[in-house]
Each structure stands twice: as C-alpha cells, then as structure tokens.
C-alpha cells in the first residue's frame, strides 16, 4: 500500500527532515509512527498525502508512483487518502454534517448518496445526534471524531492520522484508537503518527520509530 524508497526531504530553512528513508506497508495493515517532535513524522505523512513532494527518492502509494503524478491528478489521489489532523481542520461556520460531507461534495456525489454516507460515517464515530451542531459547540474529543468521520466518509483505502490524540485526555485517546482498530478490522490501511507511547505499547501493532529523519526502529516488519 505504501512504499518509501530512499526518500529524502530537505527544507531550505530547516535542513533535512527525512534522510534515506525506506519502508513498506501492506494493504490492510495498521501501524504507528512515533518519534520525538521534529523527527519527521508529519513530513512523512505529508509526502503520502502529496501535500509535499520528496527532494529525492520514490514514494509509491496504492501502486501509484507519486513523483509521476501530474498536478491535476493530485485531487484524485487525495480522495483515496483520508487525513486526520491534530487540530482537526474543521470549518467552524459549517455544521458537523456539512464538514463530514465535504469530501463527497467535492467529489461531486448526489445529495441522496451524500446524506446516506455522511450519516453512516457519523454513526460509526457515535455523533449521529450532533449532525446539526457546529464544531465550536463540540468538545475536543467530539471535534476529533468529526475529523475522523470526514477522513473515512469517502471510504478511502488508506487513512493517515497526525497526532490525532495530541490534545485529548487518556480516556478519549483510547476511544479514538478504538475507532481506528474498528477501521483496521474492515480492511482499511492506517498509519497513525503519535507520541502517546503508553497507548502504542498497549496495542499489538507495528511501530515505526523515526529519529532525525531516519528510521530508527521498526518493530515487526511484515
């Protein structure tokens, strides 16, 4: 599903964020990505979602070499990658329903299909009753669940999460990770960047550890 081959990413102002990174993830796999801040976790996820391009090396996602992907095809790639952020990235002036519907609206689906899928996604994250609320009226954990619903509503084969529980207390974090496990069980590939090590340890999944832009440890190569 994901393949990195000798990937380098250099920022002109910060220097090297990733250097010579190579790893693979199979379809349907769930893995954690850990490492101290600035180790390159976010950069790695941004390369997969094609928010950025590598300076050198190849990134292949879902059988597609991202380096060869022309600009106009980028939106279609992003529709196949659900992205979850620490700060949720929700539209504050739109209802929960509209926020979750955004990927489907953007993809040009019909009203009826959108309604059906949005409610299914909200049901999965347990927020079906809050579809008319605006994100501001929700708690941090609820907002993050809206973000998750938005990431999965388009049924992407791959979901990326960047510190999804960064602002949440342990109970809520456990709840969010429980959701991820459920997606994993239905065959979604998940890569979750987190530094919630205790939670990572308590779950039986592969963990990739980055240090200074290199792969320092890979527990359980498949």
């Amino acid at each position, binding site marked *: 599903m994901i393949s990195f081959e000798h990937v380098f990413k250099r920022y002109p102002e910060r220097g090297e964020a990733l250097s010579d990174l190579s790893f693979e993830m199979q379809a349907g796999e769930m893995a954690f990505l850990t490492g101290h801040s600035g180790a390159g976790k976010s950069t790695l996820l941004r390369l997969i*979602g*094609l*928010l*950025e*391009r590598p300076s050198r090396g190849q990134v292949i996602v879902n059988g597609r070499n991202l380096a060869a992907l022309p*600009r*106009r095809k*980028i*939106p*279609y*790639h*992003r*529709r*196949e990658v659900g*992205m979850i952020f620490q700060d949720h*990235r*929700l*539209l504050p002036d739109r209802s929960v329903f509209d926020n979750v519907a*955004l*990927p489907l609206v*953007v*993809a*040009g*689906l*019909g*009203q*009826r*299909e959108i309604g059906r899928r949005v409610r299914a996604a909200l049901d999965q994250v347990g927020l079906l009753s809050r579809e008319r609320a605006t994100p501001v009226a929700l708690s941090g954990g609820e907002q993050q669940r809206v973000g998750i619903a*938005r990431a999965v509503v*388009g049924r992407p084969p791959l979901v990326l999460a960047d510190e999804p529980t960064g602002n949440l207390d342990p109970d809520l974090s456990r709840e969010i990770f429980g959701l991820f496990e459920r997606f994993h069980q239905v065959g979604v590939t998940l890569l979750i960047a987190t530094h919630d090590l205790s939670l990572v340890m308590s779950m039986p999944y592969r963990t990739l550890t980055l240090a200074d832009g290199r792969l320092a440890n890979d527990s359980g190569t498949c």
Partner: protein
Amino acid sequence: MPKPKTSKRTPHRRSGPRLLDMPGLWANRHLQSAVATLGRLMHTPLPTGMTIAVIGISLALPAALFVVTENLRTMAGGWDQAAAISLFLKQDVDDAGAARLAEQLRARPELAQVHLISREQALNEFRALGGFEDALSQLKSNPLPAVLALYPQAVSSAPERLQALHDELMTLPEADFARMDTLWLQRFQAILDLAQRAVLLLGGLLGLGVLLIVGNTIRLEILNRRIEIEIMELVGATGAFIRRPFLYAGAWYGLLGGLTAWFLVTIAVVLLQQPVSRLATLYRSEFPLTGLGPLAMLVILSGSMLFGLIGSWVAVNRHLRGAEPG
C-alpha cells in the same frame, strides 16, 4: 440528477464520471454552483449590495450618456426633412416666374426635390403662424418673396458640394439670396458622432473599473476563505471546483450591477419624461424620450457580466494556484 444512473455509476466514481454522463453532470454542477454562489452573495446583503451599487453607478453613467446621444440623434433625424438650401427670389419675380425657375431646377441631377413656396402661400403661412394678422392686413401688397426649398440628392449633400451649389444659385438673375440650412445640422451630427465615440470610450473605461472592483472583491473573498479553500484542497477538491464559485460570484456581481445600471437609467428617463415633453410643447413639437432599448440592455447586461467574469478570473488566477505540493 439522473437518479437511475446514480447506482450504476458509483463504481466508476473514483476514476471520475464516465464520458457519456459528462454533459448532464457538468451542466448540473454548474447550475448548482451558480445558484449556491448567488445564495452565498445574498447571505451577506450589505457588502454584496454595496459592490453591486458601485458597479451599477459606474455603468449607469455611460448608459445615461448613451440614452442622451440616442435621443438627440432621433431629434436631429426629424430635422433631416428640412431643406438643404432655401433660395429666396427677388420681389419682382412673380409666381409664374418662380414656377418656371422651379421647373428648370428640377431638371438638375443633383437635386432630388424642389419645393416652391409661392408668395401667396408664404403670406398665408406667416399669417397662420405668427399672429401678425393685424399687421399684415395693414399692408397693401405682399411683402414676402417666393421661396424655393431645394432638397439635394444624398450624394450631393456633402458640405463642400452644397457650398458650390449655393454659390452657383446666387448667380441666378432671379435669386435674391440663398441660405444653407443644413450645414449646422451636419455639424451637429458630427458632434453627436463624437459624443457617441466618447460614450464608447467612457463605457470601456468604466468597464475596466468594474473589472477592478470585481477583481478586488473576489481577491478579498479568496483571502477570507483561505482556510476553507485549504481544507477543500486537502479532501481532494480539484482546482476547477474551488475556482468555480468565485468565477460565478464575479459574473453575478457584473450581471446584478448591469441590472442596477439599467434600473437607474430607466428611472432617470421616467423622471425626465414630463419636463422634456413640456419643453417640447414649448417648441411646438412632440418629443417622446426613449430609454434603453432591448438591444442596449442586452449589451449592458452581457458586457457587465463579461467584465465581472474577467475581473474574477484575473483574481482567481492570481490568488488560487490549486493543490500544489511544496
């Protein structure tokens, strides 16, 4: 949305819509986007209204000048019936002599028409017109000369040819003097042509103003919705999808501004109708003021819409670059 097709199309959704479904889908999306954009504009009535008013007033100015020149042109058109040259005959030429001269002049190829106003007719006309009844009845003889009103052919009505004709007529033994009547009319028409050209220039200039107004409004809107645009790009919106509402907003601003301009000019025409017809009555004539015709309205609306669209297009291309990985 063609419902029966929806379920069939779902598996293809990821690779984009199928070619056969494209026209309907495309039109549908555009319609949706156009209506949604109008809804969004109406959601903030005050700023939207102000932008539209600025556009409307800018366009009302050249449109009003156009109405003025068009009306002057119609008015001048009515005077085209006037004779180009009036040839006043000497007092001692009697009506029979005048008729003979008229006959001679009719034979000339450059004259389309020669109209004889005999001394008797002139007197009657003068009587009817001026209220000089009493004064005229005091006179023993008719003091008015016979007049020949000459209407040249269209090709011979150029000022220099009229002048030549005029000079030649002056040498006729029967002629007292000849007056050129339409030279001033031609000058007036030339001024009107100039004015119309000025209206066109002004229209172009203010159209450019509309372009800038809309461009700036759209630029601010793009900046205001920066976060929303980023999120839409994140979830896979194409550049076209993001640009579309802004382009529609520009077109709406233009169209509604054009409508406002039309409305303002029409109101002005209605308000001026009465004073103008009173003035016309004082000049013993009738002059119905005409407003913007359907063609002019079409030009204003489509032109302002086009300017709005171009303005937003420029802004969108400058400020929206689409999903661009760093």
